[in-house]
């Protein structure tokens, strides 16, 4: 009844290869949050309008509420749980803390992954670049100015400059 047969999908999640047996058309968001119990990735609009569920697939930002499981086969997925390495925060996480670039914190994982993907491609983004790239990520608490500053600080840290 509208649900296709379950299959085995193999992909890398935060550096580790995993197998998930499920229906190919299920959205990655729910596989992460429900099957794999990685709840850092958030549901907010469910239709790809807000960016809260942003994760990385092969270093490209995707809206996991719109991204079917079958598309991750053989790829690398990164979620907020994989942003810091070995207990050490990523410079973006440090910078978000330093600038208090969050309030309720619900949109924060999506913001961080969106920003991370941008910095991979553009290590020296202008304010305009940040605004254009992050435009699809919504923050109801209104932390946008601080998020822009935090991304710029993180970019400097990642380039080895003084923050």
């Amino acid at each position, binding site marked *: 009844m509208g649900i296709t047969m379950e299959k085995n999908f193999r992909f890398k999640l935060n550096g580790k290869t995993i197998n998930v047996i499920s229906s190919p058309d299920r959205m990655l968001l729910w596989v992460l949050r429900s099957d794999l119990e990685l709840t850092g990735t958030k549901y907010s609009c469910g239709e790809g309008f807000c960016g809260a569920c942003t994760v990385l697939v092969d270093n490209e930002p995707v809206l996991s509420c719109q991204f079917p499981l079958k598309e991750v086969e053989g790829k690398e997925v990164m979620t907020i749980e994989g942003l810091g390495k070995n207990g050490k925060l990523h410079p973006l996480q440090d910078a978000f803390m330093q600038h208090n670039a969050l309030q*309720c914190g619900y949109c924060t994982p999506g913001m961080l992954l969106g920003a991370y993907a941008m910095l991979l491609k553009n290590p020296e983004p202008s304010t305009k670049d940040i605004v254009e790239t992050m435009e699809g990520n919504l923050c109801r608490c209104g932390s946008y100015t601080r998020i822009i500053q935090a991304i710029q600080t993180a970019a400097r840290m990642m380039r080895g400059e003084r923050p």
Partner: protein
Amino acid sequence: MNEDEYRFTLDRREFLKLVGSGIVVFFTTGDPFALPQRRGRGYPEDFNAYLRIGEDGRVTCFTGKIEMGQGIHTSLAQMLAEELDVPLDSVDMVMGDTDLCMYDSGTFGSRSTKYFGPPLRQAAAEARAILIQLASEQLRVDQRNLVAKEGVIFHQQNPQKKISYAQLAQGQKIERHLEEKPLIKPYQKHTISGRPTDRMDARQKVTGEAKFAGDIRLPGMLHAKILRPPAHGATIKGVDVSAAKEIEGVKIIQDEDLIAVLHKHPDMAEKALELIKAQFEPSGSKLDNQNIFRHLKDSAPEGDVVTEKGNLEDGKRLSAKTFEKTYYNHYVAHAPSEPHTALANIEENKATVWASTQSPFRAQAEVAQVLGFPQEKVRVITLFVGCGFGGKNQGYQIVEAARLAKLTGKPVQVAWSRKEEFFYDSFRPAAVIDIKSGLDGSNKIVFWEYHNYFAGDRSSQPFYDIPHLKVLSMGGWGGRSGGRSVHPFGTGAWRGPGSNTNVFAMESQVDVMAEAAAMDPLEFRLHNLKDERMKRVLIAAAKKFGKSFSRTPSGKGYGLTCTDYLGTYLATIAEVDVNKNNGKVQVKRVVCAQDTGEVINPEGVRMQIEGCITMGLGYSFTEEIRFSNGRILDENFDTYEIPRFSWTPQIETVLVDNPEMPPQGCGEPAITSMGAVIANAVYDAVGKRMFTLPITPDQILKALS
């Protein structure tokens, strides 16, 4: 059933056992709203919060307040650490857990720091006095020679002679009730409170470790999706669940009005829900965005006098010029980042509910009632809440989760979809304000007649020096004030309830009069104010803005407002560009000066002001719930536009120094000026006044044509 049947007497000794060992001080919040409204609700009434110094030296504050982004998790900890002389990082906040914390009516109205902060300080001072006394006994040193610093008490002359709070708390079971009000430190001696402090919850929130209600996973839990009517007022005629049943692992519950599908994965439950075929009798509502204002005026109850002074006839007689305008605003959604969510689990006749709520104790009472449990058999745990803004004062999802947990015998999560969130929101009410006002020959406001339909009366009392005035309020934002039966769907408190509409109307009208007086907006306000505190914030904002105002419309696009929000004073200035071809407005810069009394966390206050300004752009420009015949036509962020990165102006905040005044609220004040300051700036830019919020490009183009 009679509510009496749900009463119980919480055994105080039982409760104290839960608290554990160490040094405990009980105290009562200063907020009359926070206490149980009736006696016999089953909560101890002689205290409603407490702090504990544990045997490990850690200090824990237990409060029924919750953290939804506003930052009290940090500012309350600062107040406690300051008064107790402990490092800030040794403080833990336990918030919104009905088993561990005492009754609190909820977190709203910018009231936490203002009313909870001062008694918390006193409790900390009391705890410190107990510790000094214990140290005096153990060190055999006169109390007067002892000094406390960073959780250690030492001899002033001989610092080697010392003992830590942890050592002092060892093996103790001391309970004190705050009866007298101990002296607290003067603000000049503060080293933790009053200093810009980073959010203490930030690390959890940047790592994804911060838990919200929807992040709890229990063995065997099910996710429920509930059949909803297509419109408010629509009733179900028939339902066929047979296709949904075909999905493997799905469970269907039909219990009176509640038709739900449950599955171990939420998306599968959603798929099953889509397979349910249901027929509904359409809603009888004939209301929509066009006819709502007429409807509101026609349905308004008799007015309550909010304030009255002099006599309106004298005011009219004294007026050389009179002004009569009507202002409108549409319904606005809270649109929290985290939709309403709850997980309920019932084990051995005790229900535990994890809920995204601003009112955990209200939720506890509602769950107890629907399950037929005594209140002590319901525990509501509030984790981090992803925005509230008043929208999470209520939440039917909590009761739904509890009912379904009882019916299925499994832990059940109900997490509203964005569409459900837009449907069941308690919207900020649409409202109409009629103002008649008058200026005398010296350009003083001498007459002010204000008729408020459904906005709510907050911030409707003029703070200008007006000899003849009357403010009437016809219907408010919530149930008690008569709005419920009139609106086509639920309405309620929305960040700065009432005030957003009232400040928009009042401060627009003031600008209308300033122009007629041939004065610039700043000059005119100062001319009509006696309140020195308000003048001070106006001047502080103008100084920061650094550019001079002219009589409107100057073409420069500068707008100015000031307001008093429950004791917090603020002045806001905006600079805008209006594109006359497409009606779009870009806000270039916003300056806000705020006097919020003693500031606990300057960084936190700035964050709240910035957030208010940014969020306030939404109701100023785009946010309007469109509806027709009971249907909510905006169901997601594609058509209901909220502020984005590209909207963000340069924001500058000025904290006007006023440490002698007790701390006031800061979570809401700055949003209440946004509609007015934008309307005034748009007028200054294009010479056309916008009388309706939101100020859409269509409204601007229509006014310009």
